């Protein structure tokens, strides 16, 4: 009898858990329209599917959601999101958002690249956009948004080369590929631009999650004489920053301002402003200028990438001034930052 009761209780608990888990988490702001919003029938609905990081990943998913929330406040759109817990969730999440009759559906992250294109081809009347993916042939109802990651990487590379006391700096990559290549070669070009013979140690972790490996790689780099290490490796980077903290060396963060992870050691970060991209797209859509069928490229010029605002804590003002100058040169296209091995070899 006792056993039965307990099992019944457990089953009930499980059901409640399942229901709670499936329940859609609508953002609160969407519920109450504020005064400056346009009437309901004209309201744009924009939704996004996060990748496995989730909407509070302290990285680009969170950044994208912040962009949508800003659009909600300033442009009066209705924003919503679906979180993916695993790669298999992308499809179902996209379908759910399709059924919700959104005006625009975002896929956040290159992992959804093929899927979003497939969906766009299946539903030609639905508008789609994706972060970090460029297609060879983009359907008319789809926009790819990519960031010139090489540009902020160039700037942090320059800072690293100027600040190193040992003449050696490091780069830890996640998995080799187009996206991380931009970081690697932009960084190397930045180091080269400083023109003081600084050497770059490069190593890939072949993972975006193995923080122990990141720590070991960074430890080895510091042991071999590097004193500043830049990472573009997601969770692996936690280990890199930890190694910097323990050895009292410097690290450079990625995607967002990562200074909070180790305030004394993270001197700057190469940031991608996903929020600006998402916001601008909402604005374009509202003004009827949706750039369907194209790939939108965000660089320094468009305010899509930058170095972290906290950089002035550790980086001397005169170096920051030079960086500001370099920024202008990149914006004016006096410097074209390389984004892969080929362009890097041609650089200067």
């Amino acid at each position, binding site marked *: 009898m006792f056993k039965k009761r307990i099992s019944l209780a457990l089953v009930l608990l499980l059901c409640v858990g399942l229901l709670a888990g499936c329940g859609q988490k609508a953002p609160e702001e969407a519920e109450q329209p504020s005064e400056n919003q346009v009437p309901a029938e004209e309201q744009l609905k924009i939704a996004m599917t996060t990748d496995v990081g989730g909407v509070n990943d302290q990285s680009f998913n969170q950044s994208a959601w912040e962009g949508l929330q800003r659009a909600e406040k300033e442009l009066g759109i209705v924003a919503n999101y679906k979180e993916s817990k695993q790669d298999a969730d992308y499809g179902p999440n996209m379908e759910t958002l399709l059924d919700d009759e959104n005006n625009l559906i975002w896929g956040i992250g290159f992992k959804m690249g093929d899927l979003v294109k497939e969906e766009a081809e299946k539903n030609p009347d639905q508008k789609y956009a994706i972060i970090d993916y460029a297609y060879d042939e983009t359907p008319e109802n789809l926009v790819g948004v990519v960031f010139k990651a090489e540009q902020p990487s160039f700037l942090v590379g320059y800072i690293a080369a100027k600040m190193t006391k040992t003449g050696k700096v490091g780069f830890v990559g996640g998995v080799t590929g187009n996206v991380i290549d931009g970081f690697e070669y932009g960084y190397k070009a930045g180091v080269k631009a400083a023109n003081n013979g600084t050497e770059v140690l490069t190593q890939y972790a072949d993972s*975006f*999650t193995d923080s122990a490996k990141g*720590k*070991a790689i960074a*430890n080895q780099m510091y*042991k071999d004489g590097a004193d500043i290490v830049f990472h573009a490796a997601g969770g692996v980077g936690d280990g890199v920053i930890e190694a910097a903290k323990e050895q009292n060396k410097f690290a450079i963060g990625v995607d967002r301002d990562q200074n909070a992870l180790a305030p004394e050691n993270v001197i700057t970060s190469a940031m991608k402003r996903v929020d600006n991209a998402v916001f601008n797209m909402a604005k374009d859509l509202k003004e009827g200028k949706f750039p369907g069928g194209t790939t939108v490229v965000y660089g320094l010029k468009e305010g899509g990438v930058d170095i972290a605002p906290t950089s002035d804590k550790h980086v001397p003002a005169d170096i920051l001034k030079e960086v500001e100058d370099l920024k202008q040169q990149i914006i004016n296209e006096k410097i074209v930052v390389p984004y892969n091995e080929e362009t890097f070899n041609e650089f200067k």
Partner: protein
Amino acid sequence: MLDNIGFILGTTLMYATPLIFAALGGVISENSGVVNIGLEGMMTLGALMGATVGYFTGNPWLALLCAGLAGGFLALLHAIASVTFGADQIVSGIAINFLGPGIALFLSRLFFEGATMTKSINLENKIPRPLGGVFPQNSFFDLVLNQYATVYISFLLVFVIWYMLYKTKIGLRIRAVGEHPKAADTLGINIYKIRYFSVILSGIFAGFGGAAMSIAVVSNFRPTLISGQGFIALAAMIFGKWKPQGAMWACLLFGAAQGFVIFLGGTAIAISSQLLAMLPYIITLVILISFVGKSVGPAASGDPYEKGER
């Protein structure tokens, strides 16, 4: 040269420690006859709990303890399902592997204003490094021995568990329950009690393993922090023939292979990083195939025990 060897040995220890904790958990549980593939989930919850308590209290020992308790709590659920109700232990373990990260994310959002990443713990509030500053920085002995206390604790626990399993009354009972529960029952051993004890202890150890990641290897939790360690620990336990010292050696072997590969990747030798990333698994497989031979687990491992069943 010497410092490179030091680096590989040091990395081995860092890498192996979380695995050793979890593998020990697996050893205890399976020796009592309960398969625990929920180690991964228990580690995840332990990692979150360690990072959270460590951040808010600034006391690493309390953090480690709470991580153990969190793992033990999940293990209790596993024990209720698989010991009391005789549910399939694999199924229950898989459920734990979903439940652990789920609860961890939920709690993280609760304590850190919706963030799935916890705030990082200051260096001085992490688990201490007993030999920190004894040797000059990056010298051989510094590289090998300047490790967090969790590393030393894990080796101590290997000895403790070995002693418990093979030299004490309770250890004999645990093994008897795992080999032949009916015989043990006829001799008046309370099967359920022994199994509950072992499973909960195994969860506590897995929780320690998670904390060894989140308060020693790094100083914060994020959802991908524990990705596969629980399963590698499980494999290490099987390679180690269900013995604490065997599991320890298997974990060390895996850690050493990782350390070696990271060292290779930093040298001028040009090997693609994908091939290098495979190497630890290949080395481990080859060594096990050639030297370890057949490994047979406790006879009743995986079978639920029903009193009075024929």
